[in-house]
């Protein structure tokens, strides 16, 4: 039971919690947070598992760095989309519009906002 | 690759390029389109004629290149191929002429003629295909290119007919594909070869081969309209007359029959097929189809539907002929490939003329049509008598040859089938003739179109007359060297080698 394995298990736990949230939560921002949680979980697993060989291993660090960058990019894109979506539809989740009638259009000034 | 090797490709190309050009032409350029059509048709006829001469002198034309790993694309011009190719080339020219007249100032002509050319291209491809795979390739191409022709009118009825047609044919195609694929797994890529490939097969192959044979026949039988796979044929009658003529005489139905010929002769080989006990079963089905089609035809009051059922019955003559498995009987079957084509196309041309000129579709409207349209009616009469098998017309040659073959093969019951079906043919054709010639016209024609002194447009009148002439000559000069019978005997001596 090395500490590294502990990290790995913690990572796995984070992962599953994140997954749990990612699937169950319908609010988009929280979904996104859940995703980030998962992401960190995965990174933790990566770093943790890689250590059990003799000596520290540079490769996972590099990988995780890259992974974090990718995750940030993804998050950024997601945030932009969600924001835009909210402005257009005034909704914060993805239920089928068929189920609930088309919502009142989002905040007007946001619609006219030139930078959108 | 010499020019002779490419001759089949050129022949194929003529109609393909014609199709492309026609699709590219704007709708209203009628003269130009007609010109393209006719030139292509004539050119093709010439090329095929060249090939026929070459094959007669024993030349071999062909081209082959690998397509998919383990499978070749093979075009080959042997005598059997020429039988079918010659038929389709000759009848294409006539049908083109006819359709030009038939579709005068109707919409979507450019679409029609485009697919029409495609359809003929695939027919030629089927004729020239050198192995089952290539055959299948063109077989499916035919299916696709005929669909637009069937639904050409775009009416609800036409669309429904098209649906039935496509369901039947595609399903049949799938079955056929399965058969071909399994055969391929069993014994690799099989070129068509006289005598077939399984003359000396391993005993453990017998069972799978039998199954595969059944599957293949089932797949091909859809197009050949073998009962109970014939359902699409009568429905497809809503298509314009030239299309029905083509479907019945050359293209679709014949493709199926021709495929069966290829499979029986050049994949399995008559002896093997007989040894596996497959021919007798096939013969039984064919005989049943013959009788069933004729009986059904009796009950049709629509002229084209009656003709359709008569096709169902007539095409199975070809198959029955094969099953006689003797040189003479086989000759009877093969020669019917041509004879039935010529006769049936004549009948459909005439039916189309009645519909176009006088607006007659039902048989009981035909009273006295003979006096109004003598030319058409003479053609119709000749063809009808040919179907009945009256000498000296083409149909008689078929029946006589098949009959002799049946006796030679000791399958006397076939004679009974022939006689009964001839009686039935007489029973459903003679009344029509009686109405045409001896019926007193009761009420004015439905929608009559005047063409001055002539009974109908020359475009419509001449094709049936010419084909009627063919079927008369095919019977009268049956012993001449280049008559269908003569050619078939050449095939048999050369390729079927019985």
């Amino acid at each position, binding site marked *: 039971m090395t500490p590294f394995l502990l990290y790995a298990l913690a990572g796995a736990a984070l992962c599953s919690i994140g997954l749990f949230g990612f699937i169950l939560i319908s609010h988009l921002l929280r979904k996104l947070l859940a*995703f980030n949680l998962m992401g960190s979980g995965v990174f933790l697993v990566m770093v943790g598992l890689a250590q059990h060989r003799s000596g520290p291993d540079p490769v996972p660090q590099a990988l995780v760095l890259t992974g974090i960058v990718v995750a940030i990019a993804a998050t950024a894109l997601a945030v932009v989309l969600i924001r835009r979506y909210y402005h257009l539809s005034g909704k914060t989740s993805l239920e089928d519009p068929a189920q609930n009638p088309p919502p009142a259009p989002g905040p007007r000034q946001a619609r006219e906002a030139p930078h959108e | 690759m010499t020019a002779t090797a490419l001759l089949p490709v050129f022949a194929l190309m003529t109609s393909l390029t014609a199709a492309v050009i026609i699709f590219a032409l704007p709708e209203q350029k009628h003269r130009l389109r007609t010109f393209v059509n006719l030139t292509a048709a004539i050119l093709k006829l010439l090329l095929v004629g060249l090939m026929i001469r070459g094959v007669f002198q024993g030349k071999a034309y062909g081209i082959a290149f690998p397509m998919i790993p383990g499978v070749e694309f093979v075009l080959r011009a042997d005598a059997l191929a020429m039988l079918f190719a010659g038929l389709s080339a000759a009848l294409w020219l006539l049908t083109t002429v006819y359709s030009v007249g038939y579709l005068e100032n109707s919409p979507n002509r450019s679409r029609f003629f485009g697919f029409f050319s495609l359809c003929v291209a695939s027919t030629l491809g089927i004729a020239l295909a050198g192995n089952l795979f290539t055959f299948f390739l063109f077989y499916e191409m035919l299916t696709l290119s005929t669909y637009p022709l069937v639904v050409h009118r775009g009416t609800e009825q036409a669309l429904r007919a098209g649906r039935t047609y496509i369901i039947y044919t595609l399903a049949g*195609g799938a079955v056929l594909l399965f058969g071909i694929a399994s055969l391929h797994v069993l014994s690799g890529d099989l070129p068509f070869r006289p005598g077939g490939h399984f003359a000396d097969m391993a005993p453990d192959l017998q069972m799978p081969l039998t199954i595969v044979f059944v599957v293949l026949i089932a797949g091909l039988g859809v197009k050949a309209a073998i009962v109970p796979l014939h359902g699409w044929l009568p429905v497809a009658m809503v298509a314009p007359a030239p299309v029905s003529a083509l479907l019945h005489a050359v293209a679709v139905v014949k493709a199926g029959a021709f495929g069966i010929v290829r499979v029986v002769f050049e994949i399995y080989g008559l002896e093997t097929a007989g040894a596996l006990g497959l021919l007798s079963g096939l013969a039984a089905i064919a005989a049943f189809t013959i009788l069933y089609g004729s009986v059904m035809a009796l009950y049709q009051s629509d002229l084209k539907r009656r003709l359709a059922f008569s096709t169902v019955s007539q095409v199975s003559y070809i198959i029955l002929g094969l099953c006689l498995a003797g040189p003479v009987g086989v000759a009877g079957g093969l020669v019917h490939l041509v004879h039935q084509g010529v006769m049936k196309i004549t009948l459909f041309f005439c039916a189309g003329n009645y519909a176009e000129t006088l607006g007659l579709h039902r048989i009981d409207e035909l009273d006295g049509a003979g006096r109004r349209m003598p030319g058409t009616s003479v053609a119709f009469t000749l063809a009808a008598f040919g179907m009945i098998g009256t000498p000296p017309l083409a149909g008689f040659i078929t029946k006589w040859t098949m009959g002799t073959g049946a006796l030679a093969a000791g399958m006397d019951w076939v004679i009974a089938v022939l006689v009964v079906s001839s009686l039935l043919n007489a029973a459903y054709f003679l009344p029509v003739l009686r109405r045409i010639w001896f019926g007193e016209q009761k009420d004015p024609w439905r929608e009559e179109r005047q063409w001055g002194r002539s009974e109908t447009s020359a475009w419509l009148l001449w094709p049936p007359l010419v084909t009627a002439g063919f079927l008369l000559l095919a019977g009268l000069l049956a012993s001449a060297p280049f008559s269908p019978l003569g050619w078939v005997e050449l095939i048999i001596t050369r390729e079927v080698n019985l």
Partner: protein
Amino acid sequence: MTLWLMAGLLFTPLAWAVLTLLTGFRRGRAITWLGIVIQVLVSLALWAVVAAEGGFQYPLGGWQAPLGIELRMDGLAVTFVLLTALVAAASGLHAGFYLDPDKDWHRYFWPLFWFLWAGLNVVWLGNDLFNLYVGLELISLAAVGLVALGGQSEALRAAIRYLMAALLGSLAYLLGVALFYGQFGSLSLSGIASALNQDIAVEGSGFALILMFFGLALKTALFPMHRWLPPAHGIARSPVSALLSALVVKGSFYIAARLWLELGATLGSLALAQLLGVLGGMAVFWGGWQAFRHSKLKQVVAYSSVAQIGYLFLLFPLTWNTTEAVIIQAQQAMTLQVISHALAKAAMFLSAGNLILSVGSNRLNALAGVSHFLPFSLFSFGLAGVSLMGLPPTGGFAAKWLFLQASLATGQWWWLVVLLGGGLLSAAYVFRVYRASFVEDSDIDHFFHPSRRLEIIPMILALLSLGLGLMAEPVLSVMALAFANGEGT
């Protein structure tokens, strides 16, 4: 020589992405077309090289793995590179005419387009699992952005849904990567494979494989996980849909296929193989049925993608411990299916776009009487349809034929049902479109003829997918090179 080619292949897309980011739509278009020319030439050259000399490894910038990035350039990869070049070029050109320059957000099409292309090339060439991950992410993010270009809220909804699915998928994949690295301390496929060959499979590494397959299947929209695809592909602008259906989904599948071919023999199991195959089969039927039911043209096409992707997954059962010959056959079938589907589907989406442009409606029955006007696009659509139906002589048929051969050879006859039945089902929905266009009752007189430039592009693609069946032999021979010189499978 190859150095320059590789450099061109990988860096022009990125460079062009940055360039076009700085310009407006019209200038971006001009720049892009230049880039397209370069890319196509480069890809052709590389293909020629590989065809002549066989595949090779290419350490990027001279740094060796694991820290450096090592690219593998084998026949399969280069074939897909060339395919990408073709389809992307076609979509790019088409988009140039198709997209409305006056909608300012359309300018973002170009950079996203280039990022996508870059990502694809990375995936085709990537040799270690992590690079593949990066490539996947690049693809996903660019694709999502492209979908979002639709503008209205529906598009965004689809985009977000897509994004979520993609993210989940890539995380699952990344987790798998982590586990692998933890076990074998190597990221390169070949490294892991050799490690596996030395000591028997470590328990649990099967789980990693399953995780990765789950992630990739999610991104490839395999049957139960396909829900995100139809809205996204349906709502996106036609050139985008073309790119997505033709290439993007293939990216993730390609990785799955490589994993399976190299690790499957040891880590995989009959159950897994059959499961994937069955899911594929269900995808074929379900997708076909949905396509048959839907009344919106692009929805039909999108669902047909679901169905067509299903065929790809027959690769797994057909390569599970059988003879080398059959494995090759199945791989060839898979490749042909990928190529022909890519070409056909791109042609279909582009021509569908033209048709919608012409009749001004996305509905199927709005096509009534269209065939009056002999629109080129209808023919392109039809030809592509022929390929989807798997009728000769199209590439779709060649693929189906090889699949048939493989499944008969391995005695797994039940896949015949999928192959033949699926073909008939696809015929059913394709013919629904034909039928609609042949209806005569409505005499529409308004028909906007799109410019020939728009119509010729899908036609070319369709003809390519048609000719593929006749040309299958040479294409496959190049593809087989990699298998020949050991590298890869």
